[in-house]
């Protein structure tokens, strides 16, 4: 609490004009600021040594049906205390311009372009105003998240051209890759500029898979939309469902039973396990080490079959619901899980020893795709990628959710920022997850596994929820509408934050190493494109 008072005092002293509100959730502060002072205040929060705010989320909201204004919200996480600071401002009447903070805070770049595409609000002073989500063939003036844009609108096509950044000079080539790739990968476009072997520039062109997820949320009720949250990014089914449910539970003032919280942690760790195992295998495969790939593929399959036996879904779909979980795991089954995981752990330790004894593999991984700590900070990089670059952040420890307040987590941290560090983080987290699941078995209390929602939230009430999924921090902002419906739901997968950073990590590397670097990040295209 003292942290909150300290930060609030600092801000109100430095900027007397800002208005303080009630906090939206625990460990947070909320201020309304005048639009023209936004860049100065956000710059202050970002750079002030005692605050060091990391831009965590930036979203807009169309409030016109009620208030004749658009709302803009900036969420910062303070580096030392992990306290949240929300700044909000309003664009009233016909005002469609807001000052861009990108010149000071690099991490805002994609958020502001996204707001421009989805709402038609223009960030003044933004260095790059090309379209992001709406590809060139979308007609002018289509801004899907405006309330007067109908969700089932049929879009026409227009002629248009996307302008890539070009590097010109003798011997400079451009290599376009995608949207359809050679392996079984999702769709995205990469444009490399190379002179000889080293990459001089990489430009991403994503959002091929934009499905209109945020607009679809607005058509659903608060309790039904879990199904959609599960399908934002298939490999993070539990992470997204959990983050969404936590937001809704906060809106409904719903207390989740302790047993349900433990089970939620169990499912989240199972999801982390199978993804990390798969990633380690895939990284080995990209260095042409097929043996390790086969072993990891086998281990991953064991966990997915375990998931299937436990819940009837290999991806743990349908286990998380608003208020708790849908399935109980008996203590007998818990013992079985731990036994199976102990086998997997010793099996994986042997595989790990084989992997790291292979000099040609470590040689390929070391110093490949280095993302240094400074660049990681500038892009507000989070999750496994951040932890491999010395960014010590893990929500399970910093802002405990589910049962993590009673299950302390040892955070894996490496500083080199290369592909090997990212492999190491995953390896350490596999052991840590199995340890956590053992703790779940020991500490899980008896009791009910779900509580029923009784009331409906007040229209216009909103809240934020965050979950450390296997990729990193997943954020949901849910604003309630009339009759238990959703007025606005902002989804932020960690991929959206980490994708731009990959453009810096590949510089100076050779194109044949790109698949390896990309795999070491392993970001979701679906979760990014929404």
């Amino acid at each position, binding site marked *: 609490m003292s942290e909150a008072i300290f930060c609030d005092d600092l801000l109100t002293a430095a900027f007397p004009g800002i208005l303080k509100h009630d906090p939206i959730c625990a460990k947070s502060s909320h201020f309304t600021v005048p639009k023209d002072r936004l860049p100065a205040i956000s710059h202050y929060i970002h750079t002030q040594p005692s605050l060091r705010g990391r831009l965590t989320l930036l979203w807009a909201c169309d409030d016109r049906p009620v208030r004749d204004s658009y709302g803009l919200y900036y969420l910062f996480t303070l580096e030392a205390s992990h306290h949240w600071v929300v700044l909000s401002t309003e664009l009233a009447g016909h005002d469609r311009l807001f000052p861009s903070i990108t010149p000071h805070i690099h991490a805002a770049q994609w958020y502001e372009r996204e707001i421009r595409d989805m709402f038609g609000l223009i960030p003044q002073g933004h260095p790059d105003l090309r379209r992001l989500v709406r*590809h060139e*063939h*979308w007609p002018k003036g289509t801004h*899907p998240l405006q309330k007067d*844009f*109908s*969700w*089932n*609108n*049929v*879009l026409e096509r227009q002629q248009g051209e996307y302008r890539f950044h070009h590097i010109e000079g003798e011997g400079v080539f451009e290599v376009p890759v995608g*949207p*359809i790739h*050679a*392996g*079984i*990968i*999702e*769709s995205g476009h990469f444009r490399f500029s190379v002179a000889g072997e080293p990459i001089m520039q990489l430009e991403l062109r994503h*959002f*091929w*898979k*934009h*499905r*209109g997820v945020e*607009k*679809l949320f607005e058509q659903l009720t608060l309790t039904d939309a879990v*199904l*959609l949250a599960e*399908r*934002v*990014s*298939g*490999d993070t*089914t539990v992470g997204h469902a959990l983050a969404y449910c936590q937001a809704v539970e906060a809106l409904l003032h719903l207390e989740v039973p302790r047993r349900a919280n433990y089970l939620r942690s169990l499912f989240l760790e199972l999801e982390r396990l199978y993804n990390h195992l*798969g990633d380690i295998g895939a990284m080995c495969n990209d260095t042409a080490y097929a*043996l390790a790939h*086969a*072993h990891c*593929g*086998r281990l*991953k*399959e064991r966990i*997915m*079959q375990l998931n*299937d036996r436990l819940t009837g879904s*290999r*991806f743990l*779909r349908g286990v998380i619901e608003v208020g708790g979980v849908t399935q109980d795991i008996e203590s007998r089954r818990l013992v079985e899980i731990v036994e199976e995981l102990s086998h997997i752990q010793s*099996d994986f330790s*042997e*595989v790990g*020893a*084989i992997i790291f*004894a292979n000099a040609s593999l470590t040689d390929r991984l070391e110093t490949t795709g280095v993302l240094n700590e400074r660049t990681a900070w500038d892009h507000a990089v989070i999750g496994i990628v951040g932890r491999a670059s010395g960014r010590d952040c893990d929500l399970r420890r910093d802002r405990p959710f589910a049962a993590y307040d009673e299950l302390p987590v040892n955070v894996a941290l490496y500083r080199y920022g290369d592909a090997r560090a990212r492999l190491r983080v995953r390896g350490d987290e596999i052991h840590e997850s199995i340890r956590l699941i053992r703790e779940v078995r020991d500490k899980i209390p008896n009791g009910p596994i779900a509580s029923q929602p009784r009331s409906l939230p007040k229209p216009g009430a909103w809240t934020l929820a965050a979950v450390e999924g296997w990729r990193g921090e997943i954020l949901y902002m849910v604003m309630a509408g009339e009759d238990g419906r959703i007025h606005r739901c902002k989804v932020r997968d960690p991929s959206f934050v980490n994708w731009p950073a990959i453009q810096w990590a590949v510089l100076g590397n050779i194109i044949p190493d790109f698949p390896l670097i990309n795999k070491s990040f392993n970001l*979701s*295209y*679906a979760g990014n494109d929404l």
Partner: protein
Amino acid sequence: MFRIIKKSLRIGVVTGRYQKANKPELPVTPEAQDRARLFKRSLAIREVDTGSCNACEMEMNALLNPVYDADRFGIHIAASPRHADALVVTGPVTVNMERALKDVHKQTSDPKIVIALGDCAINCGMFKGSYAVTGPVERHIPVDVRIPGCPPRPAEILAVLSELQGKDNTA
């Protein structure tokens, strides 16, 4: 070296250690089987993602792991549509991917088979009607085989593919 050999000997063969799937929900049509007969005992697949949530991709990837090892049935993944006998399409077709899907279909040499994988590819699933989705795969290109599920299990995918190939792969 000895460590690797020892490990491999201890693990043994894991192929086939999965629960076999039942008969496919949607039977493969005789027309599709006729066309598949042209490829004899092998099938080169090109996977195209037109907007899935990536769960279907993960299950396609799982087909290639040592447990399912689809290669033993002559099923392999081609890196280019020009080398492919069959296109596996996942996800509802988004506005942004529509043209890429049509291009890929055009680039795949005839004769070819199109397989819609997962509920989204068959009927758009939860994304039906969205402004960013143009419709199921069959609205844009002719579909021969449908594999329902969200996502279908690898064993189910394998069962449909073997029915398509007209052989019993359950052994």
